[in-house]
């Protein structure tokens, strides 16, 4: 089937200071197709998407839309041509309500005056069409991240865009929500909408996309119809080598290993109740549940970031009950938060400042930081984790999403904790890096660190955990280990209410 081409890029170049993010990228996207972009972290996928959507301007090269050469100076101009971007990081106006965000800039108006009734009508039409429902009048800062993502998707669709660029939309959606999104994409595709779809989930791409372009180090290494590709061929093209994606072999802790973390009847009014579990030294405990089931809240509560209403938290049999993250850190607990942008990293600051922040005492004598020590240890960590570029003084915001995630890991490995809580540790990480993180988690467990793992990717959770407990609406609904670690059983427990 030979379709009309919608978008053509000709030798696009883009530099950020010394980084050559895109090198002579040429690409053709056909109308009414889903064109996938895959590649390692930092390969330039997001940069390419932003250039197409007018967020960045290319240093050189040409963009053709409908065979017309265009030069966008702002997303506004790209939107006028029907090109909308759903960026990797959430970009909503937090104080405005859902409906205000969705129709921002395209409000129905009569000489500038907004007509609320008509907007509301359009909103309900949109909800009906997309089957993504969100209450319209809540300010978006009150929504969970996954729901915020949905608002972004609705915003793009409300613009009746002809090309929608989705940059890792499913990284923070749960499996069932992702399925809804795929159905929506297929429906819109059949009515002629074109998609550029960036993702690290190769299965998604293989089942959803028509064509796929693989990027490596700012270059397009190949473009081909998806039927001709498989997981293995894509990985090889991305990484330049083949990496087995199997999970590392589980090494179980000694059955009589001491209990590292013990949570007893932990409750937080209105969010979760009666949470009790134990993690042994060297054990990986998985926490499974739907988005919004309360996993993140449990983790934050253990870390002292949120108050609890009841219960005890013990580390190696000593009650710690942290009331602030500082106390938790001192007790040997570390938390890898789910939002690296809002909770994890300080984007303006150099990587080195970010990494040493929780452990400054370890590289300081009295109040004075030993700058050389700090520099050396950070550099070592960065190279262990293979962060690109390997520059401790680069600002965190200049790193690609996946590399930011690695920096976040490095932050908690600077000084090894006794207990590591990892909330969605592989969100937005490329397959190669994901594999590295799996290895890392296992090696940490082998070193005797107790790990509480939260992930919305059930396969990953099962592949890594020694034991899994399921949460539904803030209550534990089941515990699985050994041969019970099977997807169907766990799924069942995730959906069942109270045990």
């Amino acid at each position: 089937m030979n379709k009309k081409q919608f978008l053509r890029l000709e030798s696009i170049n883009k530099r950020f200071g010394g980084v050559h993010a895109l090198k002579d990228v040429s690409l053709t996207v056909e109308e009414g197709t889903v064109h996938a972009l895959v590649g390692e972290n930092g390969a330039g996928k997001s940069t390419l998407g932003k250039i197409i959507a007018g967020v960045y301007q290319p240093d050189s090269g040409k963009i053709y839309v409908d065979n017309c050469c265009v030069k966008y100076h702002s997303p506004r101009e790209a939107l006028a041509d029907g090109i909308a971007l759903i960026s990797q990081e959430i970009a909503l106006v937090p104080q405005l309500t859902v409906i205000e965000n969705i129709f921002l800039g395209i409000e129905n108006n009569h000489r500038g005056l907004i007509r609320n009734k008509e907007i509301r009508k359009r909103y309900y039409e949109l909800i009906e069409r997309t089957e993504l429902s969100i209450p319209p009048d809540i300010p978006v800062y009150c929504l969970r991240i996954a729901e915020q993502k949905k608002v972004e998707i609705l915003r793009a669709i409300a613009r009746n865009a002809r090309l929608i660029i989705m940059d890792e939309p499913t990284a923070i959606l749960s499996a069932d929500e992702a399925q809804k999104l795929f159905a929506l994409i297929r429906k819109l595709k059949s009515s002629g909408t074109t998609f550029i779809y960036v993702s690290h989930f190769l299965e998604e791409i293989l089942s959803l996309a028509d064509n796929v372009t693989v990027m490596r180090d700012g270059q397009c290494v190949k473009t081909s119809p998806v039927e001709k590709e498989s997981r293995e061929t894509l990985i090889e093209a991305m990484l330049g080598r083949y990496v087995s994606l199997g999970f590392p072999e589980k090494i179980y802790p000694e059955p009589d290993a001491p209990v590292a973390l013990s949570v007893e009847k932990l409750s937080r009014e209105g969010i979760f109740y009666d949470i009790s579990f134990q993690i042994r030294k060297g054990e990986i405990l998985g926490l499974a549940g739907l988005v919004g089931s309360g996993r993140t809240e449990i983790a934050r509560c253990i870390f002292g970031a949120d108050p609890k209403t009841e219960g005890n938290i013990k580390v190696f049999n000593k009650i710690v009950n942290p009331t602030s993250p500082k106390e938790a850190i001192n007790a040997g607990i570390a938390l890898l938060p789910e939002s690296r942008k809002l909770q994890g990293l300080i984007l303006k600051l150099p990587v080195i400042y970010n990494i040493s922040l929780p452990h400054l005492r370890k590289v300081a004598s009295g109040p004075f930081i030993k700058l050389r020590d700090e520099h050396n240890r950070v550099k070592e960590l960065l190279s262990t984790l293979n962060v690109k570029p390997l520059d401790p003084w680069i600002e965190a915001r200049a790193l690609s999403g996946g590399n930011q995630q690695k920096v976040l890991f490095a932050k908690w490995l600077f000084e090894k904790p006794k207990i590591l809580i990892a909330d969605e540790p592989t969100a937005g990480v490329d397959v190669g890096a994901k594999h590295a993180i799996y290895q890392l988690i296992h090696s940490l467990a082998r070193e005797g660190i107790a790990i509480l793992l939260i992930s919305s990717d059930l396969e990953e959770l099962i592949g890594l955990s020694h034991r899994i407990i399921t949460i539904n609406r803030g209550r534990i609904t089941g515990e699985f280990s050994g041969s019970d670690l099977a997807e169907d059983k766990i799924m069942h427990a995730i959906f069942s209410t109270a045990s």
Partner: protein
Amino acid sequence: MEIAQRKKFDFTKLQVILRNYGIILAFSLLFLILAFSSPAFLTYRNLHNIIDQSAEVGIVACAMTLAIISGNFDLSVGAIFAFSGCIAAIIAAKGYVGFALLAGIVSGLILGIMNGLIITKFRANSFIVTLATGYIIRGLAMILTGGRLIIVNDPVFSILGQSSFLGIKIPIFILIIWISITWILLGRTTFGRAVYAIGGNPEAARLSGINVDRTKIIIFGINGISAALAGLITVSRISQGQADIGSLVDLQAISRVVIGGTSIAGGEGTIWRTVFGVLLMRLMTNGFNILNVSPFYQRVLGACKTMLP
């Protein structure tokens, strides 16, 4: 347990109410106190004075609300106030009153737009830009007047600031009209949405296709007009133009906006908050004057009101 919970709940709810409506509460409280402490307070004449005296700062503060919601400051409004006032006084002193008013407003608009252009074209911080342009503009006003008073004797010119219509002073009408305009702009128009959006998250606004630069330029244009309008009223009130009038107007306007409860972080706020902020402060000064509170204690008392939630 159950009780402790309920207590906690009510407490946070009270906090929310206080944060949202504290300004109204403070206003009402002060109003009652003044009404009971002085018979002179609750007279038509005095209330009329209070609103009349609020006109200049009120007008500037309403426009400043737009700037602050959009995440910007305009520290040049005091200078534009003086500049436009002087321009108008100079022209009016020559006898062209109508043209003087027009020239005053237009000069404010132009200066405001220039602020906007500098801020958007050089991607500069509005705080710094308007601090600097404020100095330049006031310097120009000084050169324009030679540092002297420009006395306007034309009685027509004094209508704006000194006359009444239906027993109500003209500045009050202007204030009310300006409040309505900014209120509608902010609450009911696409422009107003854009103001909130660029204050809340400029990146998201840009991605939504908002013309961020144009919106900012308009905001500063409106601030320029408001400063000019206020300057004209003052010049007309005192029948003279002078380069050093309005030197506190910018800080006063900002503090009124903030006291009303609009956050300087941007993205939030309303005009009614600002209106209450202006009235509260004016009420306080009026009360001090009526009750003749010692200036020493005025400062201390006056500071407490700033800290209200």
